[in-house]
């Protein structure tokens, strides 16, 4: 499974790089008991209602510390993206996209640090925000443009509730519930 995804996405280019996959994608990805006590759960939401495709993938790059597997390929569930294997460090979301009919759409996040790029110093649960892909009007023959705007919905708590479905009986379930209780305070 991993090799097929890698072939599809990166063989033409990122031959030297390996994606860190948060599990396989034959069904909804279920979180695992952390093998590494330093890993964090990172999640957010991208509203693609103005995009030509739904959210099919989102990739985050671990910039520091350097890693042989610096890319995180986030599982997606109806616009929500999440990954429970994120190591401490400085991270940048690089691109997202989706699959249309015989067309793959890739959108790059703007160069430089963006609001959703997490800096993770200690293990925990990190909500990077909810965002909306906004289409920018261009001329008929011009390349399509877009912007990304932060939105208030879904809220962190709403997404945490959705994440419970994928936490099973792992420690993540308790951590998610603790976080929800913290928000309610």
């Amino acid at each position, binding site marked *: *499974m991993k090799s097929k995804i890698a072939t599809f996405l990166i*063989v033409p280019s990122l031959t030297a790089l390996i994606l860190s996959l948060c599990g396989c994608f*034959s069904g909804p990805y279920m979180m695992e008991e952390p093998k590494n006590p330093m890993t964090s759960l990172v999640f957010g939401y991208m509203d693609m209602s103005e995009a030509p495709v739904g959210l099919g993938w989102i990739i985050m790059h671990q910039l520091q510390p350097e890693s042989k597997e610096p890319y995180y390929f986030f599982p997606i569930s109806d616009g929500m993206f999440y990954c429970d294997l994120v190591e401490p460090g400085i991270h*940048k979301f690089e691109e997202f996209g989706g*699959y249309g009919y015989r067309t793959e759409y890739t959108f*790059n996040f703007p*160069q430089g640090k963006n609001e959703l790029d997490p800096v993770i110093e200690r293990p925990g649960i990190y909500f990077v925000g909810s965002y909306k892909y906004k289409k920018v009007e261009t001329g008929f023959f011009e390349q399509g443009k877009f912007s990304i705007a932060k939105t208030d919905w879904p809220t962190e708590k709403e997404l945490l509730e959705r994440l419970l479905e994928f936490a099973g009986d792992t420690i993540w379930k308790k951590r998610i519930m603790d976080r929800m209780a913290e928000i309610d305070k």
Partner: protein
Amino acid sequence: MEKADHGQDGGDRQMKVLSFFTALILGIFLLCGCISSRDFTGNMNNIDKDKIILVGSIELVPPLKPGEQNIKAALNWKEYENTIIFSLGEQIVTEKNSLSNLSQYLKVKIGETFYVEQKYSNKLYISAPCIWIETTGSGGAKFLYLPGPFLIEPPSGCKVIYIGKIRYHRDIYNGITKIELIDEFDAAKQDAEKKYNTSIDMCRARLKVSG
């Protein structure tokens, strides 16, 4: 285009074929009419009447790390390795770089002094500077975009013109945090005279941030 992880028969083979053609197309794009950015090779004291030689360099701090550029899917990737691509001409180019328009641009090695022959104009612009950082699986390209444009006003009657060094500072996210315009005229003149083995009547035209 089916997702490979759906496990369709032959998915791997299809993707490998796709990858091959992606690389082939990239190669064809990049072989078509690229402007050579090789240093001027003529006589520095006998430059064509309507031409000038621009001398300068562009630096990136910190420099590209080994493996940071992933462009080896292109047939002539070496031409773009550790290279800054930019437009030099009378017009400011605002178009974002893509693989299909790279042929219009000059290419100079990062940190190395260039000696570029250019048709004289009293206003010239360095615009759309960038570094081709990656080819993507979908056959596209990612660029590290650098701020510009810069205006050059070559003094009339001057044939060899030192424009200075542009030093771009970047952060870990590839955000450009600072631009320095550095004048190393004396060293540049000395290097040029050594390179061309002749004394050169070089003058200076300081770059100006434009736009």
